[in-house]
């Protein structure tokens, strides 16, 4: 299992990152003492480091240079600054990538995976394929497939996004806005209908698997998954 080290002084952000990354079966180490990052690094020997630039004591650039004295593991910088010079500085100081705050967890995960792939080869990715599941209903987002009760059906990218969002949000409501944002296409955008149409399709497909009325419409808010089946 790959080890990811997080060096970020804002506890909430560090914990949020930890939660996101652990979901993908990585082991996460969160740095607590910012006077001495190097000791933790040397003893833990992580495979990748997420390094905030604005740290107490020494800044991220300093720690990166220290790390680079003995290691070539991927270092991803984290910062609220979006300027090009800031990014150049980060990369010139030994970083391999740059993540701006606010960050999208999907982007962070994708970058982690990409750098692990580059540094350690394809086999390095957690052998298991990613799956999102609840009570026996399993979605494979990388394959756009849904499995339940021994049957597997194919779904489109948009349908997969909706199912994944509803499962991860369970038991809470996923707002219309959030769902529409997930369905956003960079060139043809979306409109009000896009969501209705796709939710209807998802409902139909889940019906094929024998799941009825599992998506509840909450008027004025969004949609919610209803687990009304028994896990086999």
């Amino acid at each position, binding site marked *: 299992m790959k080890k990811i080290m997080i060096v970020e002084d*804002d506890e*909430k*952000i560090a914990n*949020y990152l930890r939660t996101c990354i652990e979901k993908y079966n990585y082991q996460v180490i969160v740095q607590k003492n910012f006077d001495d990052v190097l000791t933790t690094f040397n003893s833990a020997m992580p495979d990748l480091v997420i390094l905030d630039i604005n740290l107490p004591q020494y800044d991220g650039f300093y720690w990166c240079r220290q790390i680079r004295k003995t290691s070539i593991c991927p270092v991803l910088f984290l910062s*609220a*600054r979006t300027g090009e010079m800031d990014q150049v500085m980060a990369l010139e100081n030994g970083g391999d990538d740059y993540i701006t*705050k*606010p*960050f999208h967890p999907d982007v962070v995960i994708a970058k982690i995976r990409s750098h692990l792939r580059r540094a350690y080869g394809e086999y390095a990715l957690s052998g298991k394929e990613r799956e999102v599941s609840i009570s026996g209903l399993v979605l494979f987002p990388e394959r756009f497939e849904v499995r339940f009760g021994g049957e597997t059906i194919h779904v489109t990218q948009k349908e997969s996004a909706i199912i994944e969002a509803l499962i991860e949000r369970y038991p*809470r*409501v*996923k*707002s*219309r*806005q*959030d769902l*529409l*944002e997930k369905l*956003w296409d*960079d*060139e043809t*955008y*979306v*409109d*009000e209908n896009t969501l209705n149409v796709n939710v209807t399709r998802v409902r139909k497909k889940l019906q094929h698997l024998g799941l009825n009325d599992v998506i509840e419409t*909450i008027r*004025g*808010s*969004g949609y919610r998954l209803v687990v009304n089946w028994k896990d086999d």
Partner: protein
Amino acid sequence: MAIFFREHLGFVCFQLLQHVTLSSLLLLAGFDNTGVLLYINLLLLVFFTAFIVYRYFSRKQLYHQLSVPLKQLEEVLEPTGFTPLALSINQLLVSQYRIYQAEIADLETQQMEHLLFIDRWVHQMKTPLSVLTLAAEELDEPESSSIREEVDRMRQGLSTVLYSARLRTIEEDFQIESVNLIAMVHAVNKEHRRYYIRHRIYPKLTADKQAFKVTTDKKWLFFILSQLILNAVKYSANHHDTIEINIEEQHHEVHLRVRDYGVGIPVSDQKRVFDKFFTGENGRIFKESTGMGLYLVKEVAERLEHGVRLTSEVGKGTMVTLIFSETQNLTQV
């Protein structure tokens, strides 16, 4: 010239008085050789005239400086001659110039420090906003969306503050390059997708070519387009469900239009919408407006040498056109 005459009027009168006094006294004293008297007066007048003429030419520069209004602070430093008066006046003006320069330099430093502070502060604020967003994601609806919407508004506000502060040193900030307009519009729409979604108003992009290339500053153009789009959506609420973005080539220029079918701007306000802090009729109705949006758009467009035109009709909508000149248009025919 005029000042010279006015200054020396006294001299001339005094000289004439002396002539009259001298002549009168001599005549009264019994001197009756009028020829010699006339000759004396004439000779003295000639000396006087020569003196006046010399005075004029040696002080010409100074009088010129005193009669022509200043246009630039530095003009005050020009030397105006070697007469004692000229030298003293020059010295006085130079020392005044130095004092003003020192004050200006001081103010400039203060301003730079302030801008630096704003820059740092805005970036600092982004972190708590990120934390708020993350925390809000854990809540149920409708609190989750409600809080995240407000956080996004703050984030947009911070962005406007940052750009507003950078406007002052915009020329140092420029990076003119060739930009793909269509890709840029897609990027701006993507950046503001949550805003579109929240207001239930969606963009439509039409272009009469596959690709449009123009010379501009990417970062600032992104800012301009963002402002225009945010305005278009804001004023469309409850009126229409789309805004249109259209890119066209006209007379070798490239015209980018952002059109909304919203409330429109009353004719009485149209000339003033680009003024700083102007909120007008719509400002009273929509309440939340700093009045800076279109002002910034105009200022930035001017520095980038792009044209901006606005047409609007109350109840029908508004259209803002950004014009890239022939020299800025790199689109292949």
